[in-house]
């Protein structure tokens, strides 16, 4: 097996073929990003620290990135990362977002503005995302569709209801994201060898 990205391709094959994928969870403060991840991963969330990438001036603070991991099959680990809250929100997302399957944007319909930055970032970088409406602070605000329309969200973006405290809802959200990401990827570059992903595969 060839290890791309390394100068020494002859490490020898590993015992098992392992690979990993990641999903980014973004949204405003207190909308339930950590809860979302905590309800599906194995064990507790871990926190790693990173230097902010743009080192303007004194570096006095490390940025904390929360994440969790679960094994989807014996050789595939899925990581879920909380998109960190930098002072300028998207300043350091590239490391976290590069190579992600997609992103979940948690949106509190009472505070839609909090998640706008994230949505704009993912649209600019062509990262497939789903919008998960967090009904924690449910309020009979009728025109959810109107709010979303006013935010200019592309109609192909899936909108799901997701209370991040419940595992089955989180799982459904992630499935919706994976399906959307697959379609999105296929739409963008339908490779010659690729079959159409439209047929459901179970």
């Amino acid at each position, binding site marked *: *097996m060839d*290890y*791309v*990205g*390394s*100068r*020494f391709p002859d*490490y*020898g094959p*590993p015992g098992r*073929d*392992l*690979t*990993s*994928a*990641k999903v980014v969870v973004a949204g405003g403060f207190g909308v339930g990003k950590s809860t979302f991840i905590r309800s*599906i991963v194995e064990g507790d969330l*871990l*926190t*790693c*620290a*990173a*230097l902010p990438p743009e*080192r303007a*001036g*004194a*570096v*006095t*603070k*490390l940025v904390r*990135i929360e*994440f969790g*991991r*679960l094994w*989807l*099959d014996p050789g*595939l*680990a*899925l*990581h879920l*990362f909380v998109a960190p809250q930098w002072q300028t929100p998207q300043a350091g997302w590239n*490391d*976290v977002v*590069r*190579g*992600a*399957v997609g992103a979940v944007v948690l949106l509190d319909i009472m505070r839609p503005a909090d998640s706008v930055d994230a949505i704009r970032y993912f649209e600019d970088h062509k990262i497939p995302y789903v919008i998960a409406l967090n009904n924690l602070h449910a309020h009979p605000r009728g025109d959810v569709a109107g709010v979303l329309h006013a935010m200019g969200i592309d109609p192909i973006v899936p909108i799901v209801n997701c209370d991040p405290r419940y595992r089955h809802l989180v*799982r459904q959200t*992630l*499935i919706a994201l*994976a399906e959307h*990401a*697959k379609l999105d*990827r*296929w739409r963008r570059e339908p*490779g010659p060898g*690729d079959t159409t*992903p439209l047929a459901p*595969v*179970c």
Partner: protein
Amino acid sequence: MTPAPDGHRRRRHAEAPAEQTFADLMNGFSLDSGRRKVRRVAPPPRTNPREESPSVAHEDWPTIADEPLAPAAPIPPAASIVRAYAYTGGRTRSNVNLEIETLVSANDQAHQSAGMLQAEHQQIIELCRAPRSVAEVAALMRIPLGVAKVLLGDLAERGLVDVHLTATSAGGDMPDLGLMERVLSGLRRL
């Protein structure tokens, strides 16, 4: 001759640059290729007008070890930036391309030669008996992500840990359809 007050005064002089900003220090670490080099190369050319005294050997210490203490105080104790980058000799980049979710696992060779490695490498090898991601290693070792990448890169270059494939290994910025399919079916099975 009274070397003691002299040495004392000199040490105080050495502490004067400690007033520099923390950014200067960090730049010193990242642009230069390491504190080892600084230590070995810098002191000899420095022309010291005063005669040698027993405290000469300690003259460098405040600039390297003591300086970060004051600004680092508000940082959580687990992750003093400079102390962590000292593990890497000041290097901030690795030759091996590691993403934060890349899985690494220690191989047999690592377990055999674990005794000869430096302490941090040994800890990593211990952690990586089961496959772990770069982010996990950083979190469990309580070191910044960049330091974990450099240390794991060292181990990978020596062939002691296996670096597994990830979405961007093939070159693109996005996972391929096969991986997405695997994620999807894995999620459905949960």
